[in-house]
C-alpha cells in the first residue's frame, strides 16, 4: 500500500531523511520509533504530501503530493501535538466530516465512546480543551471516517487507561483492512499495538523487524494484587487504572487492556517492594 524508494529530505545543511526504502502493506501495524530528530515526523509529513522530497513515495500507486485529495481521503491522521485551533469543537467536527465525506455523528459517537462528550462541548474552543480531550477528539476524527491508512503520532500518550482500552478496541476493529503507522519515542508505549517495528536514527532506518502479535488488541486481563501494607501513592496509581479495593486497601482487583500489560507492569515495578502477590489471567 505504501511504498517509499530512496526517499531523502534535506533542510538547509542537514539531511533529515537519507535514502529511505520502506514498504507497508494492508493489515500491517508498524511502530515508527526513534529519538528526537530521528526523522519520524519528517517521514510522516512526506507521506502526507506536506513536504517535497527526493525519491519515490506512493500510496496505492499515487503520489501524495500530486494526487493530494485522493490520497488524503484514505488517511486518518492524529498529530503528536494538537493544533491550537480557536474554532469550536462542533465546527471542527463539522469541517473534518465535510472534507472527509463522513458523518459528524459518527465522529461524535466515537468521541463519546472514548469518554469525551463532543456534543456537550460543541461551543467550546478546541484550544481550551484539556490535553486528553483534544487527543480523544482528534482520534475520533481520524477513526470516524473511512480510511485505509492510519498515521498516528503517540496516539495514546494523553489517554487514561479506560480510553486507551477503547482505543485499542477501535484499532482492533480496523486492523484487517487498514494499515497503521504509529510513531513514538519509545517502543514500550506502542509495542502492544503493532506487528512490525521500524526504528529510525538520524534519518536512516536502523531496524525493521516483525514483532509477535499474539496479544489481541481487544483482549482483557483480570488482575488481582495483594500488598504487604497499604500505601497512598500506590493506591492512587491503581485507582487511575480503575482498580477497586477492599476496606483495608491491601487487596486490589481490576481489569486492564491486554495491549496495556507492559505499561501496567512497568507501573507495578515501581512498587515491587510493597507487593506480596499478583495474579493476572486473560479474560477471553
Amino acid at each position, binding site marked *: 500500500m505504501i511504498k517509499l524508494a530512496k526517499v531523502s529530505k534535506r533542510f538547509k545543511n542537514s539531511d533529515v531523511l537519507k535514502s529511505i526504502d520502506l514498504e507497508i502493506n494492508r493489515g500491517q501495524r508498524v511502530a515508527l520509533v526513534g529519538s528526537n530528530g530521528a526523522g519520524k515526523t519528517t517521514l510522516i*509529513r512526506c507521506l*502526507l504530501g*506536506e*513536504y*517535497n522530497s527526493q525519491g519515490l513515495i506512493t500510496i496505492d500507486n499515487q503520489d501524495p503530493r500530486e494526487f*493530494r*485529495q*485522493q490520497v*488524503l*481521503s484514505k*488517511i486518518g*491522521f492524529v*498529530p503528536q*501535538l*494538537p*493544533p*491550537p*485551533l*480557536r*474554532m*469550536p469543537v462542533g*465546527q471542527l467536527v463539522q*469541517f*473534518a466530516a*465535510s*472534507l*472527509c465525506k463522513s458523518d459528524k455523528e459518527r465522529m461524535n459517537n466515537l468521541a463519546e465512546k472514548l469518554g469525551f462528550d463532543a456534543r456537550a462541548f460543541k461551543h467550546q*474552543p478546541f484550544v481550551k480543551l484539556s490535553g486528553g480531550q483534544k487527543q480523544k477528539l*482528534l482520534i475520533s476524527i481520524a477513526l470516524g471516517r473511512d480510511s485505509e491508512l492510519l*498515521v498516528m503520532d503517540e496516539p495514546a500518550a494523553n489517554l487514561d487507561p479506560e480510553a486507551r482500552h477503547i482505543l485499542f478496541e477501535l484499532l482492533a476493529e480496523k486492523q484487517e483492512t487498514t494499515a497503521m503507522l504509529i510513531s513514538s519515542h519509545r517502543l514500550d508505549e506502542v509495542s502492544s499495538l503493532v506487528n512490525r517495528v521500524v526504528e529510525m536514527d538520524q534519518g536512516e532506518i536502523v531496524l525493521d523487524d516483525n514483532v509477535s502479535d499474539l496479544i489481541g488488541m481487544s483482549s482483557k486481563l483480570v488482575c488481582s494484587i495483594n500488598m504487604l501494607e497499604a500505601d497512598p501513592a500506590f493506591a492512587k496509581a491503581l485507582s487511575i487504572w480503575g482498580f477497586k479495593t477492599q476496606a483495608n486497601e491491601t487487596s486490589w482487583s481490576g481489569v486492564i487492556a491486554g495491549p496495556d500489560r507492559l505499561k501496567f507492569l512497568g507501573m507495578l515495578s515501581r512498587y515491587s517492594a510493597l507487593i506480596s502477590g499478583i495474579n493476572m489471567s486473560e479474560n477471553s
Partner: protein
Amino acid sequence: MKHLWLTAYNDIIESLRARWFVVYATVFGGIVVILFAFGLSESRIMGFTGLSRLLVTYIQLSMAILPIFVLITTVRSVAGDREAGVFEYMLSLPVSLSAWFWGRFIGRFIIVFLPVFIAMAGAVGWGVIKGSEIPWNLFMFYTGLLMALSWCFLGIGMLISTLTRSSDVAQGAAFITWLVLLLFLDLILLGVMIQENLSPEMAVTLALVNPMQVFRTATMMLFDPQLVLLGPTAYVILDNFSQAGYIAYAIIYPMVFGMICALSAYFIFKRSDLP
C-alpha cells in the same frame, strides 16, 4: 467550491475569536466613536461639514493604520499557524491546496474589511437616525477605496507569509515593507529625490506605483479636485487620467497589485513545503 467556502468560513470563525481581531475592530470602531465624541461632524474644514467631514478624517486615519494592521495581523496569524502546527493538521485533511489557500484569503479579506466598513457604515447609520444629509457618493467611493486597500495589503501579507518560515521574520518583513511604502508616501522625500536629479517622470511613476500613495491621492481628490496639495505632480495625474479615470485607477490598481501578490504567494505555497 464547497471546500473553499468551508475553509473561508473556518478562517472567519477562527479570526473572530482571535485577540488581534478584537483589537482591530475596537480601533476602527473607536475611531468613529472618538470622531463623533470630539464633535468632528459639527466642525467645518475646506467646505466640508457634517458626515462628509467625519468621513474625510476617517479615511485619512484608515490610510495610516489599515495597511500596517492588515500586514501584521495577516503575517502573524498565517506564519504563526504554520509554526504552531495548524497547517500540519488541517492540511492532512483531504482539502485541495487551492481551496485551502483561496478560502483563507477570502475569509481573511472579509474579516479585515468588515470592521472598517461597519465602522464607516455605523457613522452613516447614525447620521440617518439624526436626520443628517448623507454623502452617499463619498460613502460609496470610500467603500471602494477601502476595499481595494484591504485587498492589496492582504495580498502583500499573504506573499510575505509564504516567503518567510517564521512569524518573527514575517513580522519584520511586513514592517519593512510598510515602512518603505510609507517613505515613498512622503512628498518631502520625493522632493529631495527630484532635487538630487531624479527625473519628475520617475517621481510620478513612484507615486502611481505605491498603493498607499495612490489611495492617498484619490482621497485627496475629493476635497481638493485640482490636487493643489500635491504640487506639480497633479498636472501629470490629471492630464493623463482625468478625475474619474484616476478614481477608477485608484480602485483597480491596488486590487490588481494585491491579486498579483496573492497569485505569486499561491504558486510558491503550492510548490514549497506546507507546514
